[in-house]
């Protein structure tokens, strides 16, 4: 039995009959968030690298953060989002990928979105903060079950 399934103790359950279902679902939990988050990040990276998004952010958000030269940083951001998301999705070099994404998303949170306030409808910072926290969890925990890191048996 997997570590996550073993965590579920039928004697603690108010409806002990659900233990079988819970034990089947629990191992999927961590990978579900890893893959969903990566899939949500991927279109942003794709747009930047292949649809001219680097020029847009170089002129706007990168200039706002104030790093030089803007276009080189725009490409770095696009590559981090695109390749970082792919690595996170398949769980290969999960921790380095998560680390790069945490740095990127925290920078967006505090340097780009901060002035818009908290709430997502007003392009606020809660979305990038949540994504940064999720990536931070994978920096802590690594790829886990259903990751290439686990399959290979070696990881950063």
């Amino acid at each position, binding site marked *: 039995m997997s*570590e*996550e399934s073993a*965590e*579920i103790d039928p004697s*603690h*359950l*108010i*409806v002990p009959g*659900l233990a079988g279902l*819970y034990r089947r*679902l*629990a191992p*999927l*939990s*961590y990978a*579900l*968030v890893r893959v*969903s*988050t990566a899939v*949500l990040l991927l*279109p942003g990276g794709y747009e930047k690298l292949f649809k001219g998004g680097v020029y847009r952010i170089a002129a706007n958000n990168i200039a706002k953060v104030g790093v030089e030269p803007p276009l080189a940083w725009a490409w770095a951001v696009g590559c981090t989002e695109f390749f970082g998301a792919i690595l996170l999705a398949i769980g290969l070099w999960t*921790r380095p990928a998560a680390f790069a994404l945490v740095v990127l998303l925290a920078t967006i949170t505090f340097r780009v979105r901060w002035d818009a306030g*908290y*709430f*997502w*409808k*007003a*392009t606020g910072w*809660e*979305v990038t*903060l*949540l*994504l940064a*926290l*999720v990536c*931070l*969890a*994978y*920096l*802590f*925990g*690594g*790829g*886990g*079950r259903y990751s290439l*890191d*686990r399959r290979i*048996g*070696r*990881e*950063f």
Partner: protein
Amino acid sequence: MDTTTVKPILPTLANLYRPLAPFAYAFLRLSAGAILIPHGVQELLFRGSAPAGRYLLAWGLKDPLEGAWALALLEAIGGAMLALGLLTRPVALVLAAEMAWAATVHLKFGWTWTTAEYPVLMLALCVAVFFRGGGRYSLDHRIGREF
């Protein structure tokens, strides 16, 4: 997660994250719950329930304001319960339903961070928490009884 079956390439680095690894899941649960609390609090204290009310009205609900209050309570109190891991699975399931609804409502405005993408991210987190429950570091586990 378990660091026992996977060998670290850089053992020095592994010493840094190995103590943190057992908390990864609890950290996910805590983040998902905590990020929701300001939504509910804003709607309860600063009458920010109008947007949710409009969506509920458009959706055909007779009394949208009551629904909006219910959503606000759900986000404030449900968010806190998810963060603490109290009645984790039922709360996660109800929040997942809310997020699925929010995603469908916002989908017609597009697929960006200010439309359907964010509810879908929250949906994934709530479903994941329903799958695993409170886990080791939760009030459910501390109490020793859970749904």
